[in-house]
């Protein structure tokens, strides 16, 4: 073991380590530039926040063989159409609330976070909200008082009251609606959405 074998030489491996690391970093930086440009809001993968003015579907895409979001006709959240900057402001309030209330240490969002409560990626499209017409009201009352409105499905696991203001809860709902329009390469799979009327194209 102690005799010098060429391919086990210290200086050779030092060079390899440096080159391999540099190469990988270079590729990562290049891919990062490309990815960030593709996931900035307002792209086909991550729509602009004003998408909350429209219906969002999650449908089977034959070509890709996965479920993918489809943006439908106008259907403003809380019946009020917002311009780009108003939409951003509302969604941003939702994001700040989600961080400040630490939702991700109970829930997963895009599959990341904690496993104590349901994934919120497509919460806007969840069948649990019954029907399109009552969804917004139900979501609002649930977020404002999750204790009284608990479902828990017999587990008794309830979401606590997080002291959200109504405006914050609206922001959160806008956030969830916007998030459901992100193209997540088919995650979650087999998700069955809430019934939504669709204009025939």
């Amino acid at each position, binding site marked *: 073991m102690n005799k010098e074998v060429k391919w086990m*030489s*210290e200086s050779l*491996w*030092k060079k390899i*380590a440096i080159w*391999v*690391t540099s190469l*990988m970093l270079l*590729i*990562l930086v290049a891919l990062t530039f490309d*990815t*960030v440009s*593709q*996931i*900035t*809001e307002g792209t086909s*993968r*991550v729509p602009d*926040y004003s998408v909350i003015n429209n219906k969002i579907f999650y449908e089977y895409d034959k070509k890709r063989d996965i479920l993918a979001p489809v943006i439908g006709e106008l259907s403003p959240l809380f019946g009020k159409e917002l311009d780009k900057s108003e939409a*951003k402001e509302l969604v941003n309030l*939702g994001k*700040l609330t989600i*961080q*400040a*209330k*630490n*939702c*991700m*240490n*109970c829930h*997963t969002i*895009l*599959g*990341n*976070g904690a*496993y*104590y409560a*349901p*994934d919120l990626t497509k919460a806007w499209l969840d*069948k*649990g909200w019954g029907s399109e017409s009552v969804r917004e009201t139900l979501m609002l009352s649930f977020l404002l008082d999750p204790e009284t409105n608990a*479902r828990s*499905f017999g*587990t*008794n*696991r309830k979401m*606590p009251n997080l*002291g959200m203001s109504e405006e*914050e809860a609206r*922001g959160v709902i806008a956030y969830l609606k916007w*998030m459901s329009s*992100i*193209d*997540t*390469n*088919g*995650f*979650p*799979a*087999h998700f069955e959405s809430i019934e939504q009327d669709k204009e025939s194209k």
Partner: protein
Amino acid sequence: MKTPSVIKGLRLGQQIAIKYFFAAMILFCAQMIFGLIAGLQFILPEFLYQILDFNVTRMVHINAMIIWLLFGFMGSVYWLVEDEAGSDLVGYKLGNIGFWVLLIAVIVVVLVYLIVQVGPGTESSLWFINEGREYIEAPRWADIGIVAVMLIFFYNIAATFSKGKWSGISGVLVLDLLALAGVYLAGMFYSTNISIDQFWWWWVVHLWVEATWEVLVACIMAWGLIQTIGASRKIVTTWLYVEVALMFGSGILGLGHHYFWIGTPEYWLTVGGFFSALEPIPLVAMLVHAVYDAGTKNLKVSNHPAFAWFIAHVFGNFLGAGVWGFFQTLPQINLYTHGTQWSASHGHLAFFGAYVTINVAMFYMAVQKLRGNIAMGSGLLNKYRWKTSLILLNVGALGMTVALLIAGYEQAFIERAVGGSTWSGYFSAQRDSTFIASMHWRMLFGILMTVGTFFLAWDLLTIGKKNKNPVFETT
């Protein structure tokens, strides 16, 4: 070169290291307590409901972990820096100030987590209460403090090597510390856009645990192998370079296994799947290397507990990160396991196997010298203490991992494959009797681990105090 100064048997950096280790051990105990509470809330959801909710207990659990492991690493580096540099620490006072600033910051952050818990949806909540981003929840003011302390730390280490001498190990170590601190900056800004948010969040989390932390422990292991079994520096250094090449070669682009479903483009399915599938290779290499070294050298080590924990590290890293990580790293599988108890299963065994183990090994290295270079081999008194804690912690970790794996399997099947990850699908899995049983087993093994942790603390406080036979002189 002047001979390094030694006070009370400990060098300057080692005196700072003892402080870090002490604080780390206390936080380790806190981590276990909060883990138990969080685990209990799965079984008894009313427990501390609206008083100390799951999101708070879990946050304290995982933050205590991150912080104590970092404390342990900083302590480890302070511990070995002077021996490796052959010189005194440049900034003893500075290092001490850094430690106290960091400790006070941690205490304030935790108190705010426990008392204030959550804030209104404003930027100032993120600055002063918590950022709500898993593992790096610490509010922004604390982020800035952490970076400042890391800079002090980095300066201290790099300047000490510059004053003394550089080696292969120290070269890798210093560059790696720089990368470790640099990557943290990627987690320090806010974005409305969740895809952008998680993209950079994973830079911190993944590039820490699967790249920079791995290389950091490889450096500590390299030093440990030389110290405990007198392995040849040349061979160890060569291996370290091999490890770096393999680890960064696979781990940097392996980052892509977190970019399957967060809005990022489809090419990550290929890039992430391929490179992360290679990530176990360096861990296998490490295992082979360590077993080979342990087998060829005579095993007359003078520090049995440290050696046992070094071995636990090698196996734990391979199993927890390499095997358990590999299970779910291909996109076809990850589509179903993503964000279920599978991740928790892997997360527990990987963090325990790779990082708890090596920190405990370093605690034992340190305590040996602290008690006056006593022999910690077969003649040691109260050997049962370290052995009990070793067994309880490792059996507990493995048992918990298996319980979570079973829970994860049920969840992936019932919630993901059948239930389509809906609200009701989620609860179908949570109600499943096998799932519930697994949550109870997790608690049982968690209790074993907690008892093991307290045994460890007790052992570290007492080990070797009554032994009066110093065995060796460190050079």
